[in-house]
């Protein structure tokens, strides 16, 4: 199966590898003062897992079903189970490698640009460094595989994968993430010279609620766990769809 997987997907692999190399070169070449350009590039990497889900995950099985080549593969001398395992393992390994490359690039870059490092607990910077990019990539590809195994057509699989991936990401960022750990509340007075206090009358005190930056890795761990659990469930669904249903 390794031969077939490589032969079927080598163009995609080489394309992604070339894109990563290009991104590295751009980050290296851009003048480090050009914060805006670099921020745009870094934030653009948020979309990479989505692209992986759309162009690797969703078509992985759907294309074979659509072209009918699954019945060619399923009547060779290996079982359907082994066929699926090779497909899934290949795609997830590629997704993880790609996610790891992204996070490594961004983390490396953020060390030189302290603002991204300091604000890394904030939505946005949080999503492009640490472990979560790997988890997003694995989740996106698992989602694509599962949807493809259900719908067996490339375009519906891509559309649903895209919609569900964006919905899950938005809901988790907006609704779930703030509650991973109870936020800290603190009364601060103007003596501490916080910017926010210039907006309120002199001498008043303000209650602020926040997640401290020291919780970065705890949050990363929790979010990674959530996405990996979802990915496992989706892969289980794909196995069920492929092994229990007819060609």
């Amino acid at each position, binding site marked *: *199966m*390794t*031969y*077939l997987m490589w*032969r*079927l997907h080598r163009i995609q692999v080489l394309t992604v590898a070339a894109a990563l190399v290009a991104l590295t070169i751009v980050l290296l070449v851009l003048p480090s003062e050009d914060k805006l350009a670099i921020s745009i590039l870094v934030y653009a990497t948020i979309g990479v897992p989505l692209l992986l889900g759309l162009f690797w995950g969703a078509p992985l099985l759907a294309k074979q079903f659509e*072209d*009918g*080549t699954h*019945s*060619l*593969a*399923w*009547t*060779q*001398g*290996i*079982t*359907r*189970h082994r066929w699926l395992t090779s497909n899934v393992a290949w795609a997830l390994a590629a997704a993880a490698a790609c996610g790891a490359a992204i996070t490594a690039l961004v983390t490396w870059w953020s060390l030189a640009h302290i603002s991204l490092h300091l604000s890394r607990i904030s939505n946005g910077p949080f999503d492009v460094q640490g472990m979560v990019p790997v988890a997003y990539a694995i989740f996106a590809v698992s989602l694509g595989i599962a949807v493809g195994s259900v719908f067996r057509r490339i375009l519906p699989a891509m559309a649903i994968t895209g919609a569900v991936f964006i919905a899950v990401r938005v809901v988790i960022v907006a609704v779930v993430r703030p509650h991973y750990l109870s936020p800290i509340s603190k009364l601060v007075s103007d003596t501490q010279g916080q910017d926010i206090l210039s907006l309120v009358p002199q001498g008043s005190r303000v209650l602020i609620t926040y997640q401290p930056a020291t919780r970065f890795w705890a949050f990363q761990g929790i979010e990674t766990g959530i996405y990996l659990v979802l990915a496992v469930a989706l892969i289980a669904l794909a196995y069920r769809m492929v*092994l229990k249903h*007819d*060609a």
Partner: protein
Amino acid sequence: MTAEDAPAILTTGLGKRYGSTWALQDCSLSVPRGRITALVGPNGAGKTTLLKLLVGLSTPTTGEAKVLGEMPQQDETFLATIGYLAQDVPLFRRLSAEEHLQMGAHLNHQWDAAGARERLAALRIPNDRPVSTLSGGQRAQVGLSLVLAKRPMILLLDEPMAALDPLARREFLASLTEAVAEGSLSVVVSSHLLHDLERVCDHLILLTASRPQLCDDIDDVLATHRVVLGPRRKTTEVEPGLTVVKETQTDRQARLLVRLNGPVIDPEWEVIEPGLEDILLAYMEQDQMINAGPMTELRVAR
């Protein structure tokens, strides 16, 4: 019965339902080994369904199938015995014939790549171009070479010639005949037309409306069917030894295609030996008449 002398195909009460529609039902067949079987029937009669059940690509709703004594299943031993070519010959479009052969070598324990290369070379099929650039006939030949390279014990081909022009059909059949002549391979080829297969096959399965109508050696099918001509009268008056498959009544004469269960006794009937195609068409038409109830009445009324 050991697996060695089990029939090539044995099905009992095999049925497959999709939603509320039965694609195949009450299918009990037995095909001896070494036969080249034509699986014929109109479109939608269940040919593809039957083949998919036989190779384990679908699971039956009722009954069971045995192929060479084994239940079709996801098992490397079983998969090694079958060669299956699906309808429209699915291939990986961007891969060349040679890359398909490489793939087969990786996915099968036994693989005769040399033989396949020889076949393709003899047919002058380019080995190194993506198969999407080949003609339909060439793709069908690549597909056939792939299934033969598995060195299967039974070959199941689903309408392999449907999209081919007459010349390509002839070449495909020649290739198939040649391959079969080499060993004790059992073959099932489906088609909605018998014409192509009549010269090649020695056995026949006829499916109409999701049920098997005939499953026999072609010689026996020919031997047990007759056209009888006689004075017009009601079908019920025909000999008890005959089953009427199709009747055509004109003002003066009745023309019946019958299946013989015994000799034709009534000397009033003139007996003719029909061709295979006549017999099969009679069964297919009979089925259409059953499906279209009011038509039958119309014919009787006239």
